[in-house]
């Protein structure tokens, strides 16, 4: 029975990774950059919700909504100030290093405001846990909400990309920026929209992550952020179902690794997965192969 409990935990954690990975994968697909600060936007989302609902006593739903709005704005601002000027830079390292700088900045601002002591986050989920098999397996309310959120977000995003004008513009920009511009698509606007959606999702992921693992520090976001990138690569970067499957698989691998192999080695196992995937199938499960042009 413990197997099922671990599986549920893994799927729940994996769903959080999947939501974060969606943000990575969309940004990577369109702007062709690894947004290192994405993980720290999760942390910002967590802290915003914590400040509003735990410290100021507002209802949790307000906290969640405000943190989504705040992170969306933050994502757009980061893109505008730090990434857009470097989009045409000669070296691809430039924007990567800037992203690391932004990540560091967010962490240290949070460190100055909230200090390094972990804050205990009160869960925003009020659904009671479900007990199965005469109480041998417990599925927490958080796990259910996380999984539902993940599925809803994935379906919503797929519809958005395939059915709306904005989504089609995203596809066009990710395919060929220059051609999209010639067709009258606002490339900068579309990239900003992608960052907005990605950061909004990061806020949701932050709240869900902190509800399941209630300790919140300025460094909360960085590890899940990197692992979610691993998930995005695993599923094939640029692919939305890939991010979902990759995220859930990675969550399950991590929890099983923790439970059955060694709790201290869980991170090492997750990163080994990344390395193996990149060596064996660098495009991931659902990735497209891109021909190298000279």
């Amino acid at each position, binding site marked *: 029975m413990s197997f099922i409990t671990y599986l549920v935990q893994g799927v729940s954690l994996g769903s959080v990774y999947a939501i974060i990975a969606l943000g990575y994968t969309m940004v*990577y697909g369109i702007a062709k*950059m*690894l947004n290192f600060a994405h993980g720290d936007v999760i942390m910002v989302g967590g802290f915003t919700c914590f400040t509003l609902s735990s410290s100021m006593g507002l209802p949790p739903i307000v906290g969640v909504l405000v943190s989504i709005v705040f992170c969306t704005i933050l994502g757009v601002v980061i893109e505008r100030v*730090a990434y857009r*000027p*470097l989009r*045409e*830079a*000669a*070296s*691809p*390292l*430039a*924007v*990567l*290093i*800037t992203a*690391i*700088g*932004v990540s*560091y*900045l967010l*962490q*240290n*601002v949070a*460190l*100055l405001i909230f200090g390094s002591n972990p804050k205990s986050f009160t869960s925003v989920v009020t659904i009671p846990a479900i007990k199965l098999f005469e109480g041998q397996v417990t599925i927490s309310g958080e796990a259910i909400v996380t999984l539902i959120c993940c599925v809803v977000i994935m379906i919503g995003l797929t519809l958005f990309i395939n059915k709306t004008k904005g989504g089609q513009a995203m596809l066009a920009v990710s395919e060929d920026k220059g051609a999209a511009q010639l067709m009258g698509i606002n490339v900068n606007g579309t990239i900003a929209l992608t960052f907005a959606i990605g950061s909004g999702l990061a806020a949701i992921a932050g709240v869900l992550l902190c509800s399941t693992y209630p300790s919140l520090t300025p460094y909360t976001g*960085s590890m899940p952020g*990197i692992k979610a*990138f*691993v998930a995005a*690569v695993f599923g094939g970067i640029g692919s939305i179902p890939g991010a979902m499957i990759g995220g859930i698989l990675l969550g399950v691998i991590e929890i099983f690794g923790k439970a059955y192999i*060694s709790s*201290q*080695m869980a*991170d*090492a196992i997750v*990163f*080994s997965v*990344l*390395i193996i995937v*990149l*060596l064996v199938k*660098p495009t991931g499960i659902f990735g497209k192969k891109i021909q*190298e042009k*000279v």
Partner: protein
Amino acid sequence: MKAKMKCNKSTLSSMITIGMVVAAYVIIEILMKAGLVSSMLKGLLVPVCVYVLLAVSLNLTVGILGELSLGHAGFMCVGAFTSAFATKCLAEVIPSKGLCFFIAIVIGAAFAALFGFLIGIPVLRLNGDYLAIVTLAFGEIIKNLMNVIYLGKDSTGFHLSFKDSMSLGMGVDGVMLINGPQGISGTPNVSNFTIAFILIVLSLLIILNLIHSRDGRAIMAIRDNRIAAESVGINITKYKLMAFTISAAIAGVAGVLYSHNLAILQAKDFNYNMSILVLVFVVLGGIGNMRGSIVAAVILTLLPELLRGLSSYRMLIYAIVLIVIMLFNWAPKAIEFRKKHSLKNMLPKKASVKEEQ
């Protein structure tokens, strides 16, 4: 004629870099003899050298090879642990502390190079963002592994475990050498400024020679255009591995100095933040500019210690510096703006030789 001049220029530039380090060493030694250096500053000398070595080594990867490594702390970790382990094992066999430390340096550098080579084989097949994230992954894996190693020694030999110190099953005379998260303690404090200085000069000689050699030009050609370099017959994997391994070895040497300067060595010190810190040195000093890396590493290590009040804002300032410098140096608009308003435009134009810089 022109080629010869260029060669001289590069030799001159290397000599200035090394001369600068030598001059700094001589000045500090004189000040120390005169008793003008505070004990706090004395304590900082070796850490400063450690960071200089790290910055120079990372600059080889980022600036010359053109790939971002976020796992440099991992190589440092390998160097630190293997050398500290070697020192503890050899202490009984070899009475001379100097010889023992020398062997430790060689072992630390060799193991870090070996790791760099082994990791480099898969990693260097990738490029750009993927390479950065995989080096980060390797750095974390190394840190994680070092955190769970328990190694002890008794009369029957070595005992190794990945669980805890109890499961080693050592005899009564057993001594813990590596104690999991507690790391290695009691490494003799043999790092000193002179040795650190010699190591820096050696590393600089190796790197600067490499840059100005045929191999170095091949490496830089790969950085500038991989496909073009490949098409003129440059063996990409070989040269990338060469640069990466040398870089790892120097990071390992930095680790050796670091471990022999501290009483307790723990794997958790070699985290992702350490790699980023070194990256800040490299970016601030100028990517690809060894002299800049040295100066940036020295200033950024000394400054926060001297200005105690700033310490809580230190990391915040680093982050802002990182972003601003990158925007200023790389954003096409900023480059255009600088060209338009640079001082050179105000001066009468000289021959096109100036462009070479």
